[in-house]
């Protein structure tokens, strides 16, 4: 493959050319209730080529298969020539690397019969359905994937990567009378079948929580002291800080660009947030991004002040800074855009107990069902909650919706514990340019406390 790519690059007549090729093997199995909804596998090969010429814009060609590679390089060059521009595209400089990154396949999933994978998921799904007669439905999925990826540029970079990933996810639906509750759990690894077999899959946990939520009360609307668990805080930072730090989105949103201007205070001194595509073994980790730039740890917020952004080569070139290794694309059918990798909140001190102590009445928000942020406002639905009463965690409550002005809320962040952990390892992020879809990401945080956050719900 390497010689085919380098031959095609040598033959290109464009001033700049890059090539990205992908070969993917994937399996997906789904159970709904006790019924197998589907079990399928597939293999896909394809690539994308980008060309740039002086005084011209990008010419791009994507294709399936690899036989057309030389013809597609010529096509991308022609398309670039058809796009005269008055403002030249300037690419941020990256180190020119040549390396092969081959991960441990950890019991190559491609050699495991589909029947064995189905049997494993069927057992987990049945365990979940069997927890209680009130579990009336389930949605269980198993996905595995092995990806071989090549990125090479006419500047001399030639990089390759072979890596496996596996994901198992559970959703349990509980019903009693007219009450219906759903709870989800998931697990994933940058590994293969050995990791799948060794893991303790949390299917029963999902079922037990769905049952417990049936009789849980709703939190009354109001302003309360709130503690966010690592999953909830991680999701909030991904949505509210992370996406507003993606430089290409800011380039076309002058209002967001102003809101996220470097040097602006957005939180109390206790909050430091970053994005680290170079962290070992996480869903958003890669040695290099989809433009061949090495990944890195980029600080976005330091002690409450905005300090950084996530760049592609083009946004870095425009801003006169260095690319951050965040150019990511869903597949060879898509252009790379500035996207999050593994977004984290830096550790503080102490434990959850330390944070809970001293709260007379408040709420502990766990996990996240979803959220959105637009400019300075956010809303986030937790997966479930727990009342905090007289310094102790008390009864379970149904999912809690937090909303409000982001900076106002984060200014009231008054404690960050020292119990950092990565989470949402099986989640994916769907933000991006039109048509650009899901990417593997992770987020991580310690427990944090906000001394007054707006909780939506039933009126007090």
């Amino acid at each position, binding site marked *: 493959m390497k010689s085919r790519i380098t031959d095609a690059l040598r033959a290109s007549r464009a001033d700049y050319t890059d090539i990205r090729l992908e070969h993917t093997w994937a399996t997906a199995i789904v159970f709904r209730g006790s019924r197998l909804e589907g079990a399928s596998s597939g293999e896909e090969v394809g690539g994308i080529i980008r060309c740039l010429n002086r005084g011209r814009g990008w010419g791009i060609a994507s294709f399936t298969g690899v036989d057309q590679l030389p013809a597609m390089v010529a096509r991308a060059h022609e*398309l670039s020539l058809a796009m005269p*521009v008055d403002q030249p595209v300037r690419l941020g400089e990256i180190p020119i690397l040549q390396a092969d990154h081959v991960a441990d396949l950890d019991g190559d999933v491609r050699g495991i019969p589909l029947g064995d994978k189905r049997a494993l998921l069927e057992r987990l799904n049945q365990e979940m359905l069997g927890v209680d007669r009130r579990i009336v439905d389930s949605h269980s999925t198993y996905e595995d994937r092995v990806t071989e990826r090549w990125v090479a540029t006419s500047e001399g970079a030639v990089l390759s990567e072979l890596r496996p990933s596996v994901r198992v996810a559970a959703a349990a639906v509980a019903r009693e009378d007219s009450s219906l509750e759903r709870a989800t759990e998931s697990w994933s690894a940058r590994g293969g079948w050995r990791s799948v077999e060794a893991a303790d899959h949390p299917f029963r946990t999902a079922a037990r929580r769905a049952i417990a939520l049936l009789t849980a009360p709703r939190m009354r609307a109001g302003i309360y002291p709130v503690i966010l668990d690592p999953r909830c805080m991680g999701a909030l930072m991904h949505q509210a800080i992370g996406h507003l730090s993606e430089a290409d989105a800011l380039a076309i949103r002058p209002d967001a660009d102003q809101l996220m201007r470097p040097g602006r205070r957005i939180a109390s001194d206790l909050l430091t947030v970053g994005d680290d595509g170079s962290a070992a073994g996480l869903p958003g980790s890669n040695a290099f991004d989809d433009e061949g730039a090495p990944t890195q740890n980029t600080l976005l917020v330091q002690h409450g002040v905005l300090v950084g952004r996530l760049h592609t080569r083009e946004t870095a070139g425009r801003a006169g800074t260095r690319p951050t290794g965040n150019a990511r694309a869903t597949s060879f059918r898509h252009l790379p855009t500035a996207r999050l990798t593994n977004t984290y909140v830096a550790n503080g001190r102490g434990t959850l107990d330390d944070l809970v102590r001293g709260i007379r009445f408040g709420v502990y928000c766990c996990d996240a069902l979803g959220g959105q942020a637009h400019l300075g406002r956010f809303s986030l639905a937790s997966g479930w909650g727990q009342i905090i009463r007289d310094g102790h965690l008390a009864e379970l409550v149904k999912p809690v919706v937090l909303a409000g002005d982001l900076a106002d809320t984060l200014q009231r962040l008054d404690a960050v514990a020292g119990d950092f952990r990565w989470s949402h390892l099986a989640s994916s992020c769907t933000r991006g340019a039109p048509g650009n879809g899901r990417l593997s990401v992770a987020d991580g945080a310690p427990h944090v406390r906000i001394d007054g956050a707006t909780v939506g719900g039933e009126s007090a």
Partner: protein
Amino acid sequence: MIIPLLEQAARRTDQADLAWKTDETTTLSFIAGRPAFAMTSQGQGINLRVLVEGRQGVAGTSSDVPGNLLDLAVDAARAGDAITLLLPPGSAPLPSVVTHSPRAATATIADLGAIATLLRDRLAGERAEVNIIVERTLGSVHVANTDGLNAGYDISRVTVAIECSRLRDGRLITVPGHLSNADLPTLGEIEQLVATMRQRLLWAERDAEVAVGRQTVGFLPESASALLIPVEQALMGKATLHSSSPLARRRGSRTFSESFTLHDDPLAAGRPGSRPVDDEGVPSQRLALVEQGSIEGFIYDLETASRVGVPPTGHGRRATFGKPHAAFSNLVVAPGEGSWTELLVALGDGLLVQTLRGDGQGNVSGGAFARVASLAWRVQGGEVIGLVPEITVAGNAHDLLGRIVALGRDVEWVGSRATPTIVVDGASVF
């Protein structure tokens, strides 16, 4: 290529069917009125399903040679789900429908670029940044099975997406617009789009206070999906299997306002979901979903139809990978009689919504939605008085479609949905 594959499949399996799709998309992107990139994207895929001893297996490949595709599908069937499928025979005649335009197929990059520059130049006086994407897709679809079916058709689709953005008082106001058809847009269609964009930008020059609480809300065609998506989900045949459709037991009974009629129409000429045959080989037909407020139909692919025990409706859709599933083709809401002036009068003191952000939160299968309106205007006394700040519009789509106070007489296509402006009473605005 696909017939030898099916002949092999016939020897090793009880039944087999496949869809083979090819496409080539050319995209021109203009950012802030300037050329940004030109892209071509070529793809193809075969999705093969086999039945072995009553179990189905599916495999896909994007390679132009089937390779071990049949082996993969047979392996999948060994671990697959039990199902009885009645594959459509090859003898059924297919209806005639426009899916392809030779003029669009032969358009050059320069022809496509001319559409973008014409739009840019016509909107040059609007003090707005103009982003434009012009996209032309050419493709083919073949469906075949071991019961003798072998059908195919060609596709062309030209889509123009435009956004005019203006920064005013720290707020970025973005007015979107679009065109989509099998053929290149006509000059008249482009001028109509320009006129609409100018009108919306003009409305956005003044601000208006928003009134919170329950009120009359007009959903322009771009935002009507908030009302339609919950209904679409409830009309999926599969939702009746899982008891998750609130409409499942209401077939034949009046559920929505009498003015509301909804069809699935794969035979509409030149639209994104137009086709003579679905991806499982069932001939296309126009299907009544809601007739004068009464629930009349649900959509089924072969598998769901078999499980429910009803005839398939021709709504099988296949991607390269994964099992066939049911999907709507073109959804068409029948127009009403309201002129634009009459719609504004019907709105009274209300909200007119063009753009809703996000996919919505809440219990979608129950009909609930809550979306942020990023482009909406206050209407008072039959006039649009100004742009309102971003605000949440919420309600239950099933309830609101029972409280339609006016339907526009002009239908506008947004992707594969055609709707008039729908004015409903009692949506929550907060």
